[in-house]
């Protein structure tokens, strides 16, 4: 189930080439108007690129001569708005894909019930879309897209229109269903990329400006947009008493909106601007302290990003001079627990 795409969309000045491997989830991030959604639309068969070629599992989606219509591509698309069919119940909405594939009513509804269970929306089955909240509708939208059994799942900012309080739960649902699934997700939230994607593609003004494994791109962004949103510190490990224990043995305290059960895989996320740099171990306050070595100093605007083996910190130019920081300096990094977000992964 691997995708290869080369496309030129002249009207939107977009030229891209990308691959998604079997079972891989790739996130496309970038500023508004970067052409992210156009790329998904071209893959889904909603937008016809001026030039290019796309194959999914060796089947041609489009090239100079062939144009496979949207309904025979096997690429289900879920956008910001779930767009559930207003005249059908939730169950029949989810059963729509199986029914379109030629399966019987009973069989399709059984499949729909399974997918609703998968996203935790079984109790909504008999409702009409007008009776759902935004978060519920988007859950059902996910179930409906999955029930179509797509070879490639396309998610276009699936959480952008959701109330901020339901985003973590939705992210959790996506995390579960995207495991081992071939998927492309467009997002402007770096956390979505960090938690859901194996690989990240950064787009700006219709071009791919950067791509690579999520961790690498987020830790050391080379593009301007990447740097503006990323540089995020991500430490993964195992949950332990409401904190994350990393494989290297450090324990990161943080805040979490959901309970983080012990033994679960979890990540701690915090911004470089929340990190303090010290030459001596800071005493007293209940902070997360990491002993490490400076590897690189990179000016970002009026600040300097101090990179260490695992983490980065943003400090002022005068602080760099005061502390005499340079590659090789042994430092202590500290961050308040209240600045750290913990997520179950």
């Amino acid at each position, binding site marked *: 189930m691997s995708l290869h795409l080369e496309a030129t969309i002249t009207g939107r000045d977009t030229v891209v080439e990308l691959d998604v491997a079997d079972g891989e989830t790739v996130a496309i991030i970038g500023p508004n108007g970067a052409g992210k959604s156009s790329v998904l639309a071209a893959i889904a068969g909603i937008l016809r690129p001026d030039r290019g070629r796309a194959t999914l599992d060796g089947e041609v989606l489009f090239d100079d001569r062939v144009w496979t219509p949207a309904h025979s591509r096997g690429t289900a698309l879920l956008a910001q708005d779930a767009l559930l*069919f207003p005249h059908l119940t939730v169950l029949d909405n989810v059963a729509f894909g199986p*029914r379109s594939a030629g399966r019987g009513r009973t069989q399709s509804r059984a499949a729909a019930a399974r997918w609703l269970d998968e996203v935790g929306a079984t109790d909504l089955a008999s409702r009409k879309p007008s009776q759902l909240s935004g978060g519920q509708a988007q859950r059902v939208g996910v179930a409906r897209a999955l029930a179509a059994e797509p070879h490639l799942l396309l998610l276009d900012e699936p959480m952008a229109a959701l109330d901020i309080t339901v985003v973590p739960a939705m992210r959790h649902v996506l995390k579960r269903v995207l495991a081992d699934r071939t998927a492309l997700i467009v997002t402007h939230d770096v956390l979505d990329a960090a938690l859901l994607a194996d690989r990240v593609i950064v787009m700006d003004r219709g071009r791919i400006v950067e791509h690579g494994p999520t961790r690498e791109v987020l830790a050391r962004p080379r593009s301007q947009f990447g740097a503006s949103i990323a540089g995020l510190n991500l430490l993964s490990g195992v949950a332990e008493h409401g904190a994350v224990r990393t494989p290297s043995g450090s324990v990161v305290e943080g805040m979490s909106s959901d309970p983080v059960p012990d033994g679960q895989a979890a990540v701690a996320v915090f911004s470089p601007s929340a990190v303090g740099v010290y030459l001596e171990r800071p005493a007293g306050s209940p902070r997360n302290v990491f002993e490490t070595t400076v590897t690189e100093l990179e000016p970002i605007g009026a600040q300097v990003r101090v990179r260490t083996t695992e983490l980065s910190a943003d400090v002022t130019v005068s602080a760099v001079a005061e502390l005499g920081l340079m590659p090789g300096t042994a430092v202590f990094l500290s961050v308040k627990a209240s600045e750290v977000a913990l997520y179950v992964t």
Partner: protein
Amino acid sequence: MPSGLPRWVLVPAAVGAAFIVLPLVAMATRVDWADFFSLISSDSSQAALWLSLRTSAVSTLLCVLLGVPMALVLARTSFRGQTLLRSLVLLPLVLPPVVGGIALLYTFGRRGLLGETIDVLGLQIAFSTTAVVIAQTFVALPFMVVSLEGTLRTTGERYEVVAATLGARPTTILRRVTLPLVLPGLAAGAVLSFARALGEFGATITFAGSLEGVTRTLPLEIYLQREVDPDAAVALSLVLVVVAVLVIGLVRGTRSNAL
């Protein structure tokens, strides 16, 4: 006035409303209520009423069968000359029905454009019940197209696009998404078409004539009775008014149930 409408607007508005309502009241006052049922149940009246209902029902069905695809093509495709085609299709709305009748006569009549072809097939259309249906369909079809095209445009294509990405073929999308979503517009179009067909006079009398039981529909019967038996004409007119009021009620019902 909270909306800030100038008060004087009420005067012409009231005159306009009276202008429409008063004639109906005037007619109702002239109804011979004692003999009402015997008047509307004479043989010729019954034949006319029955013929009108039958032909209007068939015309409405034809409007659905032809008008729905026309509205779909106009709303969901774009091609050269589409604007011109739309104007032409809507022509029967503004054309005097008599002119429509003459045009139909020169199309389906014995000496018409398709007359010979129809003759070869052994059919005789002009001055038959078929002609009544053709005349009614000709004038009623635009109502269906206008109503449904509007609904299709306001509903948009978003749901159809989603359905396609879920693997639905175009026919499945039409059946399970597009038509259910525009059902209120379709129903309104059908009711309006039925009303227009029921009231059709000019094109019918020109193209189909006025043969009792064959082509003499209710409006034709009323027109003839006006000379012979004015009381019967008034009673039958009231029947058509009642039907019209029911139609307005139905359209309002389908509109308010709209999604």
